[in-house]
Structure formats: C-alpha cells, structure tokens
C-alpha cells in the first residue's frame, strides 16, 4: 500500500510544505493588520511571479502529500485496495492540484 517511492514523496513534500506553511501564516498575520479585502490581496499578488511560485509550489506539495495520506487512511480504515486505491490517490492528488492551481492562477494572473 505504501512503498518506498510513495513514502519518500510524502516525506519530501512535507519538507517542502514546512517553510511554506510558516510563510503563509506570517503573510496572513501581516495581511490582516490593515483590514482584509480582496483588493488588498490582489494588489499584492497580481502579476507577482514570486507569489505565483510560492503558492504554485505549495499547491503541488499539498496535492502530493494529501493524496498519499488519504491513500493510507482509505486502505487502513475503509479497506480500499488495488486499482480503486490507485484511482482514489490520483483523483485526490489531481483534484487538489486542479482546485489549488485554479486559485493560484486567479490571484496571480
């Protein structure tokens, strides 16, 4: 259910996420200081390659990490296995990547 490749992917994606989560939390605290509005957020993010890369990487890492985590839970608690388990893993991963990617594009472009 969890081989060395998936194990490494989940650990490496967690290592990527750790500093990004801290950065995300820091920006959230900073951003609400002067009130929170869509215009204020977009003024910071639109056209910014740096924020696009920051959240693009974040979404990629989350998609990989969460998909493998859900895979483990689905197998151990719901007894999903075989092709269905692989399909669920891909569905969660691609779903999160699609939704997250769409959000990143919306605030950066």
């Amino acid at each position, binding site marked *: *259910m969890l081989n*060395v*490749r998936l194990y*490494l992917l989940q650990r490496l994606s967690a290592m990527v996420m750790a500093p990004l989560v801290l950065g995300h939390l820091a920006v959230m605290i900073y951003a609400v200081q002067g009130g929170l509005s869509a215009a204020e957020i977009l003024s910071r993010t639109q056209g910014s390659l740096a924020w696009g890369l920051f959240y693009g990487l974040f979404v990629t890492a989350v998609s990989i990490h969460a998909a493998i985590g859900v895979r483990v839970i689905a197998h*151990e608690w719901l007894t999903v296995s075989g092709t269905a388990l692989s399909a669920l893993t891909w569905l969660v991963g691609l779903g999160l990547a699609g939704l997250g990617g769409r959000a990143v594009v919306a605030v950066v472009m």
Partner: protein
Amino acid sequence: MSKFLDVTIWRGDATGGDPVCYAVPARDNQTVLDVVTWVQRNLEPRLAYRFACRVGVCGSCAMTVNGKPRWTCRTHVQKVVAGNALNIAPLRNFPVIKDLACDMAPFFDKWVAAEGRFHPTMTRNDPIAPIRPDTPARAVANAGIECINCGVCHAACDTVQQNPAYLGPAALNRAWTLINDERDGAGQVRLVAVSGDGGCHNCHSQQGCATYCPNELNPTASIAGLKRVTARAALKGEL
C-alpha cells in the same frame, strides 16, 4: 485475593466461538500458563493451547490476557489480574485454529517474505568469521537479535490489524538484524523485500510492538533503521 480466580477463556475455532468461565484455585505464585494448564487438566481436557519450554525461550505460549498480548509462561497472575478476573483469549491478528492455539503460518510466511533467512557468504569448510562485538553495525544487530518469535508484537500492532499485507514488526526486526550482520550476503535483496507495498514504510511508529515485547526489544527502532537505509538507497537509485 479470593481463593478462586474468575477465569474466562475463549473457546472456539476459525468459524467462531465464545468466552467460557471457569473457577481456578488462586495460588501465591502462579503464571497465566499455569492457570490455563490447570483448566485443561482438571476441567476441560479438550482445551487447545500451545506451550513448550515454560521458561520464556521458545515463544510458543503467547495469548491475549485481559486485553493485552503476553507470554503466558512468564506472566504472573498477580501482575495482570483485574480484581479477581482473568480474561484469556487467542492472540489478535492471527487466525485461530482452536481455542487459544493460533495458526502461526502467516506470521512466518511474512518473516520469509521480509527475507528473514540468513544468506551465508561462506561455507562450513571456511574458518569461523571473526566478528568484533563493538562495531556499530554489530551493536545494532545485537539490539534486535533476541527475538523469540512469540508473535506478541504482531498481535499488538494496529497496522498489522488494518493492513493485512503489512509484514509486521517481528519480520522487519529480523530483516534489520540481518542487514547489520556482516556475515550475510543478501543486503540488496532484503532492501527490496522490505520496500514493497507491505514493507517497512507502512509502519506508523505507534510503538505497540516495543511496549509489549516480552524481551524488551524495540522493533519500531529497527523499522526506523530500515526506513533510513531504504530511503537512502532509493535516493541513490539503488532500489
């Protein structure tokens, strides 16, 4: 303590069963295995259970005692009795053959699947290999070598319960001792064996194995070692 213990023993087979109550004379010094043996000799001759050495070496008498896996020959009743009650059942995570006797075959199949066999690099005609006891690898191997294959760690492991393909703490602990044995020549084969879908990476490090191991081994630490060496090998492209 009362003069009699309220002993409940699970009776049945692979198709199902029920707990049955027995009154067993309480002694100042008696093990759980003594209690089971007394029941078989005095009340229930058809009671099936397994034991051999009675001194904690052979690993054949493990059962579930008041909800926890124990080696019954070295478990004193006074240390585990709940009030006056002793609930004895077969080991968790093992198929039941009859009453308290479990089928150990799947357990040892996993031991073999984890490449738990020693692969010698010399023959019996070669001189005995000099092994220094103070090398780091030998110290790591020695830390896990006293496993008696009683199955207590396997019964204590929630991952084994929820993921039937998982090789389990005993098999993986064995693999780790062999990986650190300089006389063994199958290191690469063993790394592959413990890196598959049921391999060491499924361990959640909950440490049920280490908590209940009667020989106070730490299979979780062994599995962590396997995770380290397999991850390193995978990053180098060797797996």
